[in-house]
Structures are given as C-alpha cells and as structure tokens.
C-alpha cells in the first residue's frame, strides 16, 4: 500500500531575523538559492509515513515542534531539509478560524473557508445546506462574524470541513474549543469519517481523546521523533515521562537517608538484569529481591512498595508487618524476596521501591527504586482495576 503522506528526514530551522542586517543576509541567501541551515532548529530529522485509513496522533510538550510538523505536513511551511511526498487530497485545520474576517457575515466567511479548503465554488452551492445544518447557528449566519461567540466561529468553520471530505484530515488542537455537545458532534463526525476510510492526523493534549480517536501515535520531543507506534504504548510512555518530570521537580526521587547504617546492597526486579525498564502486561506477577546490609548483624526490616511514576504510593508492605525473617547470605547481609501476585495495575509507568529500615521497623535508612511499565490497551481510569459488576436491568 502506498503511503498517503511520506516524510523523509525533515528538518526545519528558523533563521535569525532580529536585526535588519540578519534579514538582509537571509534575503541574499534565499535569492542565491542557499538553504538556511543555521538558526534555531525546530524539527530534526523526522521520518513519518501515513497510510490511507490510518489515524495518528501527534503528542508532545508545548514547544516540542508539533505545530511546526503539522505546518510542514499541511504544506504551509517548507522544510529546510528533507522531502514531503503527498499522494492525495488534504485538508488542514491548523486553526479553525483562519480566513474568517469579522466584518463579513457567516455566509460570506463560509465561502472563503470553502475556497481555502479547496472546495470548488460550484459544489459549495449544493452543500451549503449541509454546512448550515451541521453548524446549527440559525439566523446568525447572516450576521457579521464579529457578533459571534468564539464557539460559534468554531462550529461554522468545522462545518465547512465536514463537507470537504479530504483523504487526509489534519487538525491542531481544534476539539479543545466549542461546548460539550459540539465537541461530541465533532468527535462523532471524525469517527464516521475514519470508518468511511478517511485518514486522520491530529495534535491533542487530551490523551483520552487521542486514545479514543487514534490507533497510532508519535511523540515529538524537542524537535525529534522520540517514539512512534501503537497509541497506548506511546501515550503511556509520554504520560510516564511527564509524571517523572513533575516528580523530579518536586524532588520526590531523592532517597531520604542514603548514607544510613542499614543499606540496600542490591535490589533487583524481575527481567531487569540488563538495566532496561521491564514491560509487563496487566496482571503479570511482579517479583523483586533485595539484599540489605546490616552493620550490627541484626536482621533489618525491608519495606517494599509500588508507586506511580509521580511518586503516588499505591501499596506497601514491610517484612516486619508480614512477620518475615530474612535469609542470611553472608556476614551482615540479609536477602528478602517478594512476589506481587498478578496485581491489577492499569497500563502505565510505575516504580517498585525497597526501603531499608532498622530492626525495629521504625526508622528509614535507605531507599532504592526500579521502574517498570505495565502495558495494555485499556481506557479504564486510575491506577488499579477494582473488581466491579454492572447491574443490568
């Protein structure tokens, strides 16, 4: 199957244009045909293939380069390097209200929008009714757009898109506006569009929407393609990264008392021998072992706990509480092993922590942490799956 859209080695640099001398130099470079490869890099070496029927989300932090990527895809912006190959019709809604002029009536703006989206003038006449029905703004259509609420502008603009029916639809954060019922209407329309074989590429910060509408996702991070693939995998990794980032900012990650008497000498969780972050599907057993050092030879207490990547505790249990006596492996070294039996953790990023405590189980001396990922496709919310039952009439 040939790709509808193919990006190869896309990079984009913005030249420095602060001073007029810089602008003049840039003008000269453009005139003699020199590509400006200096300046600020916004995108670096992006490769992306979109096949017909695919639905792809572009996610990433603010300023990661998502909108620039979309502009390149939509043909608004020419990349500094690389090739864009498009085999089909495209409609890009980088901004719904683009092309709307406040002094003109809704109807006049609809005509402009249709031209901008590439709808021939003649077919607009036949589709006008459809547009007005979708927008559902009644008599306001004959009023100047400056009297509209921002939601009404969005309704009208999206309504025009619905009749264009492109092979590839590109949207940037557009569903974030409009009221609940209109958002629902848009989502319904996009779902229908996808079912009828349309291809979608969208930017959104709403992961629920992303998971609902898209099968694939790519994560743009600081202008690079950080990850690309199944929507659940990518969004989970992205959210985990966010949680870690905010945890890091709060300083939760720092161990409480690293240089204490009772220390964790070794801490391993299942499958993590080569230093990689293990990934297990929901419901897998999670095993771990820790070897603790005790300076006075008395067996210390260990506490194992599972926390969410942002540090929110989910469950913890100490050897003291469980009345476990450790296995003495050498002089002053004690081995503890634990296995969480099929914990109902929902897909996401978690950490298993081991804390070394004194034999009385009162004071905390050392903390070690291992990250792991739970994978799976689920739209359940929260951290854990609670056993539930629906009462059907």
């Amino acid at each position, binding site marked *: 199957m040939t790709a509808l859209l193919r990006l190869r080695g896309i990079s984009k640099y913005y030249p420095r244009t602060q001073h007029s001398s810089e602008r*003049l130099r840039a*003008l000269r470079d*453009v005139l003699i045909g020199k590509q400006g490869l200096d300046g600020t890099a916004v995108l670096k070496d992006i490769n992306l293939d979109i096949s017909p029927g695919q639905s792809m989300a572009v996610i990433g932090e603010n300023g990661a380069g998502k909108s620039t990527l979309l502009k390149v895809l*939509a043909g608004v912006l020419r990349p500094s390097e690389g090739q864009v190959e498009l085999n089909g019709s495209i409609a890009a809604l980088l901004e719904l209200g*683009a092309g709307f002029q406040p002094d003109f009536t809704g109807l006049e703006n609809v005509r402009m929008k249709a031209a901008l989206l590439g709808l021939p003038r003649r077919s607009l006449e036949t589709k006008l009714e459809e547009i007005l029905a979708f927008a559902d703004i009644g008599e306001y259509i004959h009023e100047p757009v400056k009297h509209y609420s921002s939601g009404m502008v969005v309704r009208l603009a999206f309504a025009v898109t619905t009749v264009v029916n492109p092979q590839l639809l590109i949207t940037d954060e557009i569903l974030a506006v409009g009221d609940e019922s209109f958002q629902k209407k848009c989502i319904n329309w996009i779902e229908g569009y996808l079912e009828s074989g349309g291809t979608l590429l969208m930017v959104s910060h709403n992961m629920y929407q992303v998971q609902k509408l898209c099968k694939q996702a790519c994560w743009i991070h600081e202008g690079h393609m950080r990850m690309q693939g199944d929507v659940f995998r990518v969004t989970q990794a992205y959210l985990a990264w966010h949680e870690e980032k905010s945890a890091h900012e709060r300083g939760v990650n720092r161990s409480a008392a690293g240089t204490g008497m009772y220390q964790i000498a070794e801490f391993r969780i299942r499958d993590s021998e080569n230093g990689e972050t293990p990934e297990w599907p929901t419901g897998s057993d999670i095993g771990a072992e820790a070897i603790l050092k005790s300076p006075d030879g008395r067996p210390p207490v260990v506490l194992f706990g599972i926390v969410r990547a942002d540090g929110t505790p989910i469950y913890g249990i100490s050897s003291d509480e469980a009345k476990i006596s450790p296995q003495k492996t050498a002089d002053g070294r004690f081995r503890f092993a634990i296995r969480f039996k099929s914990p109902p953790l929902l897909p996401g990023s978690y950490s298993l922590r081991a804390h070394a405590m004194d034999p009385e189980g009162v004071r905390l001396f050392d903390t070690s942490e291992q990250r792991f990922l739970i994978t799976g496709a689920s739209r359940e919310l929260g951290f854990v799956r609670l056993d539930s039952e629906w009462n059907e009439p």
Partner: protein
Amino acid sequence: MNKGVSIFLELSQREIKTRFLESFSGAAWLILQPLLLLLIYSFVFVIIFKARVPEADTTGFVPYLAIAFWPWISFSESVLRSVSAITENTELIGKVALPSEVFPAATVSATFVMHLAGYLVVLLVLTLTGTAIHWLMLIPALIVLIMVYIFALSLGLFLSSLNVFVRDFEHVMPPLMTLWFFGTPILYSIELIPENLRQYMHINPFLYFVQTLREMLLFGTWRPGLDDLIALASIIIFGILAIRFFRRLSPRFEDFF
C-alpha cells in the same frame, strides 16, 4: 477549478467589498475621489498657473489630464497597496496552504477593476461634455491598460515579497510614487521638458502608457509600430521575472513573519 483561482476570486471580491462598497456610497467615492483630484489639479494648473500644454490646445487641459490620470491612479494605488499584501496576511499564510501570489494579485486586480469602471464613466462624461473621444480605439486602449495592469502586478509581486524581508518598503514607496507621478508627463506634456533632458524621460516605463493612451483615445493618431511591440515584450519579460522572483522568496516567507 484550481484552488488558487477560487481563493483569488474570493479575495478579490472581499477586497472590492470592503474597500469600495462597504463604506457609505463607497462606489460613488470611487468616481468622486479621482474627479475631485482632477478638479484640484485643473484649478491649480489651468486657473492659477495658467499652464499651457501645447499638445492640448485643441482638446483642452482637463481631458488631456483625465486620460492619463486614471490609469496612473489605478497603477499607483494598486502598487502601494500590494506592498503590504503579504505582510498584512501573515495570519492566513501561516495557517493555510495556498499560493501566496493570490494576495498581491487580488489587491491589484480589485483596484484595477474598480478604477477602470471609473475610467469608463469619465470617458463617457468627457464625450457628453463635448470632447471627441476616439471610441474606436477602445480595444487597443484596453490592451494598453492590461499592460499597465501586468506592470502593476509585477511590481506588486516584487515589492510585496521584498517587504517581508525588509519592512522599509512600506514607508519608502509612497514618496517614491509621488516622485514618479511628477516625473511622468501626466500633468504636463513632454514637450515642455527642455530638449536636452527629454531623452532621459524615456527611461520611465510609464511614459509609454501615458503617451499611447492619449494618442489612442484623445488624438486618434495612434498606429501600431515597433515601439508597441517592444513595450509589450518588455512588460511580459518583466512579469515573468517578477513571478520567478516571488516564487523564489515565497517558500521562506513564514520564517520572516
């Protein structure tokens, strides 16, 4: 229909509507404004300065001025407006994939369409007030006007794209156009220029338009010649250069907004 064409049509319609039809009696102003200017110039030159244009002895000064004045107004207004045609539409150009030529093209076209309507009205008024307008020459005159249009469009393409990189053109152009106006024999005849300076007047491309239009519509003395062919060829070459220049710069517009 091509997407660029329908955007161009929509933009031109919009431009005509906002600039000429939206204000109260905007369409009337379209005729009134150049008429008033014409009145002022006639007053100053005919009554105060008692300027005598040897060429216009038989036709009178006002028709002599009017025939050249309207094409100039269309030209200078559309060039001045198109300078900022790209920089005023950065919002749209940065959001929608479209050939950005449509913006200067729509500005120039809308201005020409409206002013040419005014030109026809003026020619009609002149005829009714007793000036012998050579209506048979209207077809070649239209070709000359189309050449003026292409010339304005080409300059518009150059200036609007350059203005993205160097914003000074917005400020430099109005005085330059005034200079150009007085450097062109619109208010006067080239025969009033001293003999030794007259040859330099021919560097001015607008001279050809002014003289040819007078020869056609006012004197009826125009006959096709080699200079018409040269003018036509130069305008076409200039137009092609302008498009190529614009298309070279336009992919990089976004970087400089």
